[in-house]
């Protein structure tokens, strides 16, 4: 029988230098279920602890900014769907407002209200998915199915409004593609009421769930200074306790007419970001309800913008002037005066910015997309080192990013 030998802690300590192992480099992604897309992380590990993280992005780069320089303003709308493809309506609206700002046109109140409803519904649908997959990343499967069921109802409403479930392409420069259908607002209210019941259940399933709580609290803390320095926006910035919300602080599209609160976190950990998103869904429901209640009548596109918004179809088919106008807008694009503009909208993932440079005509000279997910992910090398490898899923889930937007 071989002689057994007990190793005391003292022995280990004295042999620490020889026992020390090499650091290991682990490649996570680009195709990995917890990366929510094609994000690749090069992780340097010492045991289970990460010592260095290098994100590798660009796997979904499609050259959207180059493409934008080669087409008219309205032709680019479908490309904005594919930025943050979990809330395309919000991207459509942000892009439309940016170009309208450059053109100096103001859309009528009804159009603004429709856009607010669309943006908030997009936010709800994006946050529902974000919350659901966050639960799934930390091991809770059920809330995800609950959230997805509710999200599906929104998809049906989007389809009824825009004709497409995901790639809505609903806005045009100077308005939207069509007015809201009859009875649609009633169905929105119905869907939101049923959603509030489900949210309560999700809340019971996740918020005080011991496993979820333990995995999130104190993990991935983002300090206020870091959040600002890295240019974080949206729920991730507010999770760190900075109450910046462009809907409140730099209102656009009539957001100043609605009453809502801006939830902020305290410590900036994953749990705070979860709570902020959870509350934001409730606040968005509040805004949609108000917007539907006060929905103004009147035109739903800028009627005076003759060289920008195509005239209604019935007039195109009956009147010469409108026919020419339609032809010019379709072939040459909406005529936007020379100049430059930067506009940011508070999107589900953060501030989506468009920097548009025009030299006149129907095609942008340069269009830069400021993607919130891009900035939000740039903080990973700062917050991940020191955490365990298993925390990667938690932190990524809590940041709620979309690679289509990050890589553009």
């Amino acid at each position: 029988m071989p002689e057994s030998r007990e190793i005391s802690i003292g022995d280990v300590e004295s042999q620490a230098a020889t026992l020390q192992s090499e650091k290991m480099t682990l490649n996570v992604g680009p195709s990995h279920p917890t990366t929510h897309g094609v994000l690749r992380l090069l992780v340097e590990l010492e045991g289970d602890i990460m010592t260095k993280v290098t994100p590798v992005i660009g796997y979904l780069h499609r050259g959207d900014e180059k493409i934008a320089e080669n087409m008219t303003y309205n032709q680019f709308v479908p490309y904005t769907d594919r930025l943050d493809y979990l809330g395309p309506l919000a991207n459509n609206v942000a892009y439309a407002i940016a170009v309208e700002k450059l053109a100096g046109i103001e859309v009528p109140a009804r159009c603004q209200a429709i856009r607010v409803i669309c943006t908030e519904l997009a936010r709800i649908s994006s946050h529902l998915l974000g919350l659901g997959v966050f639960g799934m990343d930390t091991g809770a499967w059920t809330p995800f199915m609950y959230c997805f069921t509710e999200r599906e109802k929104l998809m049906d409403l989007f389809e009824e409004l825009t004709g497409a479930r995901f790639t809505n392409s609903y806005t045009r420069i100077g308005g939207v593609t069509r007015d809201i259908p009859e009875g649609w607002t009633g169905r929105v209210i119905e869907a939101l009421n049923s959603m509030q019941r489900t949210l309560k259940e999700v809340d019971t399933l996740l918020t005080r769930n011991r496993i979820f709580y333990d995995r999130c609290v104190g993990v991935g803390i983002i300090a206020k200074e870091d959040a600002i320095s890295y240019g974080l926006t949206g729920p991730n910035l507010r999770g760190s306790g900075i109450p910046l919300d462009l809907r409140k602080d730099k209102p656009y599209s009539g957001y100043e007419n609605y009453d809502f609160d801006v939830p902020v976190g305290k410590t900036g950990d994953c749990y705070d970001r979860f709570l902020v998103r959870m509350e934001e869904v409730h606040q968005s429901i509040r805004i949609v309800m108000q917007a539907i209640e006060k929905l103004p009548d009147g035109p739903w596109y800028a009627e005076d913008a003759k060289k920008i918004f195509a005239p209604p179809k019935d007039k195109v088919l009956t009147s010469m002037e409108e026919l020419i106008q339609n032809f010019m807008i379709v072939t040459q694009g909406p005529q936007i005066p020379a100049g430059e503009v930067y506009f940011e909208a508070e999107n589900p993932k953060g501030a989506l910015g468009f920097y548009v440079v025009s030299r006149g005509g129907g095609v942008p000279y340069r269009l830069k997309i400021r993607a919130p997910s891009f900035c939000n992910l740039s903080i990973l090398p700062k917050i991940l080192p020191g955490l365990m490898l298993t925390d990667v899923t938690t932190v990524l889930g809590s940041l709620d990013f979309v690679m289509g937007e990050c890589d553009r």
Partner: protein
Amino acid sequence: MNLKETFAFLEERPAKDCPAYNCPAGHLVNLMQALRDQHGYSMLVDMTAVDEGPGQTPRFIAVYHLFNLESFEYLRIASACEGDESAPEIPTVSHIWAGADWHERECYDMFGIRFKGHPDLRRILMWDEYPYYPLRKEFPLAGFDMDFQAADVAERTGVRIQPAPMAGGPFVSGDEGPMSEKEPRAKDQSWREQHKKPGGSGPA
């Protein structure tokens, strides 16, 4: 508040949406540091560049958008890059805002602008071996025909990087010229009947 009074080297830049200034590249770092520390512009929300077109001087303009967290105002600072058209240069601000790191890497990737003092200036969206700067104006929309970056894979499979087929558009009609030239077509000049497709080969 007029920043020109504090910083004499600034030159006003026409803009309708927010205050905008042109800044010489030499003063850029000091200006940014002062704007962040003394004027409340604590966030760099966006950083990008604009290509004025081949042969223009200055050709590349770096554009910074700052955000003031107290007054909720935006500020645009534009700065012309120094140096030759093929290797434009501008100082980095990544030590002032950590977020500038990735923005500057993207600018380098897309325009080939060298950020002096940047700690890790690598491509970020394109792959490391990629030889072109896609957002430069002379780069065709379809891209170029070129070798696949992994030689062993290319040898085994014969795969190449090909220009994008553009038979489906996007089509735009031009603003000027005779009617015959204004028929909607791909805006990228290299795709007109008179011009060969970029790279020469690729899908017919």
